[in-house]
């Protein structure tokens, strides 16, 4: 059981791990897509929700966008380093990416704390319900990505399963893309 039974799929020409990550992302699109479609519809139905959107902290959302974009760059550089067998560099870049995830979560926790201190929570009204559910689920995905990246980083350092750096990177880019859409939906559109 040292190596997987199937390492590539002849029908698609894509490696099994990569294909699995894309299927995972496909299922995530349906999860986030369903949530965002419902939000968009209810937002169109209730234009007054713009009032609530103006209560979100735009500069903190913007900071998180910058952090995630930068972490995406780091993980793609880690992938590049892994391809060139630069295992130490890949290890370091993966941990810089994890650091980006930590900063993202810290900023998010400040935002949540600010909302709670003003008496706003998930039950306040549907807008804040969507806000906390969407950002909360996204935050869980950030945590999951960080855990996977930490595991992969040690494997990469040991020179094992270097292809997994690409896999975890693709997942991280997807998490970044979700935030790229959450930012204008929840923070900018007022």
């Amino acid at each position: 059981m040292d190596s997987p039974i199937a390492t590539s799929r002849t029908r698609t020409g894509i490696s099994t791990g990569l294909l699995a990550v894309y299927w995972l992302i496909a299922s995530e699109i349906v999860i986030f897509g369903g949530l965002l479609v419902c939000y968009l519809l209810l937002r169109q139905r209730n234009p007054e929700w713009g009032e609530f959107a103006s209560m979100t902290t735009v500069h903190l959302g913007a900071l998180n966008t910058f952090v995630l974009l930068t972490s995406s760059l780091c993980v793609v550089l880690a992938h590049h380093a892994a391809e060139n067998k630069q295992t130490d560099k890949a290890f370091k870049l993966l941990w810089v990416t994890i650091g980006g995830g930590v900063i993202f979560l810290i900023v998010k926790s400040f935002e949540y704390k600010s909302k709670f201190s003003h008496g706003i929570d998930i039950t306040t009204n549907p807008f804040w319900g969507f806000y906390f559910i969407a950002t909360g689920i996204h935050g869980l995905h950030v945590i999951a990505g960080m855990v996977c990246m930490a595991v992969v980083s040690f494997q990469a350092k040991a020179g094992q399963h270097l292809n997994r750096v690409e896999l975890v990177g693709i997942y991280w880019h997807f998490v970044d893309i979700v935030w790229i859409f959450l930012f204008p939906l929840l923070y900018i559109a007022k």
Partner: protein
Amino acid sequence: MSGHSTQKYFKVYFILLVLFLISYIVPETMPDNKTMVLLSAFGIAIVKALMVCAYFMHLNTEKKFVWYLLITCLTMMYLLYIALVPDIMRKEGQNWKSNIEVVMPDNHHGDAHGKTEHHEEKH
């Protein structure tokens, strides 16, 4: 060769940052121009997402199968949107009437932040 290749990623990152700054600054400088705000926010979001997909996720060189897979899921999203539009956007139908009202807060930082009153009447 390696340095040349990573330059491409830095270029894409720089473009993404510029796009991000535009999408952040436009709503701050012209908040009353809703069309401009929405165009800059969502138009740029789509461009940024496509750039991340193409250059960071390497979908520009990936097998077509992956595009088909992802586009199928996006189409499902669109179908969901179309299917739900009549129920959510219409306030009444043949045998039902929906009356979801969100009570606006008196001030932004008070205790009340918009409570929801949800009534659904069936005839």
